[in-house]
C-alpha cells in the first residue's frame, strides 16, 4: 500500500493515519509465530466482536496486548482465566486507529502438563545453575528459635497440624502466623510479599512455609520463580513443608530444609522440651560427677602422700637399725672368739702374738689364751 506524504516545501510530512497505515502494512509482513505468556486482563463480552487479553511475561512483567475474533475464540471452548500460562499463535499487527501494537491471535492453547513440566525443568536448571539450590547455601536451623514465622494458606488443616505439633513438643514456642493466598494467580506475589514481611519481623529465627496437599497445579505457585527466589534470598532460614511427601515444588530446593509434612516441619523447628530438659539435667549430673571425681582423686592422692610422709621417719630408723645389726653380725664373724671356741689358742709373749717357733727360746714365758680363760707356761723346747 502506497503512503503519500504531504509536502511542505522540501519537508515530507505524514498524517497520523498515513503513518499508522504505513507501519501497519510493514508489521503485517511479519510471519505468524507462537508466544508464551501469562493471561491477564482477560475481557470477553457478548456484544463484542473480539475478546481481549494481555499476555504477560512472568519473569519481568513485559506485556503484549492480544485480540482474537470472538467466534474463533468461542470455537476453542477454552475456559480461559487470568493467571493461566498459554501459548498464543498469532500475527503481529498494528491497530491503526489507536497506533497500538498487538498480537492478533489465531489460536490459544493453555499449557499442557507436559509443557508445564518442561517449563519447570527449565526453570529448575536455570536456578540450579545460578547456585540457588547449592548445599553450601543451606543454613542450620536454630536449636531454640525466639520466634517462628509460619506462612500458611487459608486451609486450616496444615496450620493446625503444624501448630499442634509445635505446641506438643515445645509449649513455650512463640509463633507468628501469616496467612495468605497460596493458590491461583495472585499466589506467587502474595507468598513472596508475605515471606518478606515475616522475615522483617523482629526476633523471627526461622520461617516455615506450609501448605496442605493439593493437585499438581495447586502447588505450582510454590514453584514460581519469584517465590523460589524469595525463599533463597530470605535472611532467616526457611523450612519448606508444602504438599505431601511425593511433592517437590521448586521452593523445596531453595529452602534450607525440606519437611514432608507440617508435622515433620514442627519436629525440625522446635526441640522436644521434655527431652531437652532431660538432656540438660543429664549434662549437669555428669558435670557434678566429673567435678566430684576430680575432687576425690585429689583427696585420695593427698591422703596417700600424707601416709607416706607419716611412715617416713620410722622407716628410716628401721633401716638404720637393720644396717647396724648386719654390721654387728659381720663384726662378730670376724672376732677370734669363735675360732678359740673351736679349740684353737692364742699364744703371746711380751704381748706379741707368737706365729713361729723361731720367735721363742726354751725358758721363755708365754701367755696362752683359750676360749674360756687361759694359763701361763714356760717353753721347754722350740721347733723351727
Amino acid at each position, binding site marked *: 500500500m502506497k503512503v503519500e506524504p504531504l509536502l511542505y516545501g522540501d519537508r515530507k510530512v505524514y498524517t497520523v493515519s498515513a503513518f499508522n497505515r504505513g507501519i501497519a502494512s510493514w508489521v503485517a509482513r511479519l510471519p505468524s509465530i507462537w508466544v508464551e505468556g501469562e493471561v491477564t486482563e482477560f475481557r470477553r463480552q457478548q456484544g463484542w466482536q473480539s475478546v481481549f487479553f494481555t499476555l504477560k511475561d512472568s519473569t519481568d512483567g513485559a506485556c503484549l496486548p492480544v485480540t482474537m475474533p470472538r467466534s474463533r475464540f468461542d470455537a476453542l471452548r477454552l475456559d480461559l482465566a487470568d493467571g493461566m500460562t498459554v501459548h498464543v499463535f498469532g500475527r503481529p499487527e498494528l491497530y491503526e486507529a489507536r497506533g497500538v501494537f498487538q498480537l492478533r491471535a489465531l489460536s490459544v492453547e493453555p499449557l499442557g502438563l507436559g509443557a508445564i513440566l518442561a517449563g519447570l525443568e527449565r526453570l529448575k536448571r536455570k536456578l540450579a545453575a545460578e547456585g540457588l539450590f547449592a548445599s553450601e547455601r543451606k543454613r542450620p536451623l536454630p536449636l531454640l528459635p525466639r520466634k517462628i514465622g509460619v506462612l500458611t494458606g487459608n486451609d486450616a488443616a496444615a496450620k493446625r497440624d503444624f501448630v499442634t505439633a509445635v505446641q506438643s513438643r515445645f509449649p513455650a514456642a512463640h509463633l507468628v502466623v501469616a496467612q495468605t493466598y497460596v493458590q491461583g494467580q495472585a499466589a506467587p506475589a502474595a507468598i513472596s510479599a508475605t515471606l518478606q514481611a515475616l522475615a522483617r519481623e523482629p526476633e523471627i529465627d526461622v520461617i516455615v512455609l506450609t501448605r496442605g496437599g493439593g493437585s499438581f497445579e495447586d502447588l505450582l505457585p510454590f514453584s514460581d520463580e519469584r517465590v523460589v527466589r524469595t525463599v533463597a534470598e530470605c535472611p532467616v*532460614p526457611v523450612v519448606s513443608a508444602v504438599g505431601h511427601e511425593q511433592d517437590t515444588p521448586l521452593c523445596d530446593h531453595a529452602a534450607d530444609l525440606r519437611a514432608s509434612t507440617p508435622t515433620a516441619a514442627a519436629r525440625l523447628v522446635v526441640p522436644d522440651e521434655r527431652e531437652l530438659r532431660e538432656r540438660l539435667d543429664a549434662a549437669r549430673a555428669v558435670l557434678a560427677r*566429673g567435678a566430684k571425681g*576430680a575432687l576425690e582423686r585429689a583427696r585420695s592422692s593427698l591422703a596417700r602422700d600424707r601416709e607416706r610422709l607419716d611412715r617416713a621417719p620410722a622407716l628410716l630408723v628401721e633401716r638404720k637399725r637393720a644396717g647396724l645389726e648386719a654390721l654387728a653380725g659381720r663384726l662378730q664373724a670376724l672376732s677370734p672368739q669363735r675360732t678359740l671356741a673351736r679349740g684353737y689358742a692364742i699364744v703371746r709373749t711380751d704381748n706379741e702374738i707368737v706365729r713361729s717357733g723361731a720367735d721363742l727360746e726354751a725358758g721363755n714365758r708365754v701367755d696362752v689364751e683359750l676360749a674360756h680363760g687361759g694359763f701361763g707356761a714356760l717353753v721347754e723346747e722350740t721347733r723351727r
Partner: protein
Amino acid sequence: MSEEGSFEDARRELEQIVAKLEGGQASLEEAVALWERGELLYRTCVGKLDAAEGKIEELGKRVEEARP
C-alpha cells in the same frame, strides 16, 4: 540470627565442658572451674526455657497490605 549468649551457644559450651570433665584429665582447679562454668551455663539454658512463653500472633494487618 540469635543474639549473643543464645541458648545454643550456652548449650554447646555446656556439652564441651561435660566432655572435658568426662575425660577425667582435668586437674582439680580446672575441674572446679569447669564445674562452676557448667553450672552457670546449665542455669542459663534452663532459665531461657523457663522464660519462654507460648504465644501465637497473627501477622494479619501487615499481610493485608502485602496482598496485591
